[in-house]
């Protein structure tokens, strides 16, 4: 019997404005759930069976949640650097899931020009965050 994971608890970061922080936490939880569901599928038998149907249904529900959460993040307005970082992380999760999958986003063969530029901006925003964090923090 394959156990399909239920929703992960979301943990909010404190550095962004409440709405952005909450939505990012939800997106992280969705991403973790999706990964767990996909990994649980590796042990499923080939062909259609109740377990594979359950996995497909779970993935479909996850993606519905995902689209809704990305939409909610789109409607927010970032006004601090922490907000930008949160939004950049959300965008990088969205790009990884919707565009790049298991492919290397830096590889010029993957994604459209716009998607790669968006990824590049996210990478730099998130990189600036880690560069400015004191060692040991």
């Amino acid at each position, binding site marked *: 019997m394959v156990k399909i994971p239920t929703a992960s608890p979301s943990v909010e970061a404190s550095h962004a404005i409440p709405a952005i922080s909450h939505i990012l936490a939800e997106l992280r939880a969705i991403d973790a759930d999706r990964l767990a569901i996909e990994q649980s599928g590796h042990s499923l038998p080939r062909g259609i069976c109740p377990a594979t149907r359950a996995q497909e249904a779970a993935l479909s529900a996850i993606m519905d949640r995902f689209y809704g959460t990305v939409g909610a993040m*789109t*409607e927010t*307005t*970032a*006004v601090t650097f922490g907000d930008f970082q949160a939004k950049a992380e959300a*965008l990088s999760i969205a*790009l990884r899931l919707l565009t790049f999958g298991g492919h290397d986003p830096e590889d010029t063969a993957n994604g459209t020009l*716009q998607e790669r530029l968006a990824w*590049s*901006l996210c990478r730099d925003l998130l990189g600036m965050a880690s560069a400015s964090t004191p060692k040991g923090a």
Partner: protein
Amino acid sequence: MAVSENTRTLPVARRRVFAALGLLAATPAGAMAGSAAVGAPVTVYRPEPHTAPGIALALADLRAAQADLDGIQARFQILPDDDDNPERVAAENALDMATGRFRNATLDMVGARATTFADMLAKAEALCLALLDGALYEINTPPEEQGEAHDRLAWSLARDILALGHLPAGRA
């Protein structure tokens, strides 16, 4: 080589979007133009000094290529629909060249690494231009309501960065 002044030639819809973002104020006033082998003017913008050199050059080239693309597209609207018309052939060549220039400048921006807020602003503007040209551009529909989920989120992030960059000092 003909040289002429060229400021913005953005179509009205795009001009409105960028004016809302405060981007037009950031456009360099002094622009130079050269001419291409195809006979169409090629816009050259001076890089702004406040960003990293690679990013500054890429942004200046991107803005200039965009101005050329807008100008060429405007020319197409008044040319007769005749593939043998030499003016149309020249415009098509110029369009190919400007498109290639826009793409190369965007690629340069993809490869560049932003390390300051000014760099982020430049990259956000490049992303807005790329999204408007590719994934999102549809007249009379706000970019927030177009494209796929990640395109709309990318627009939203770039919009916020640009808006913050144009707030009066002390507001950010």
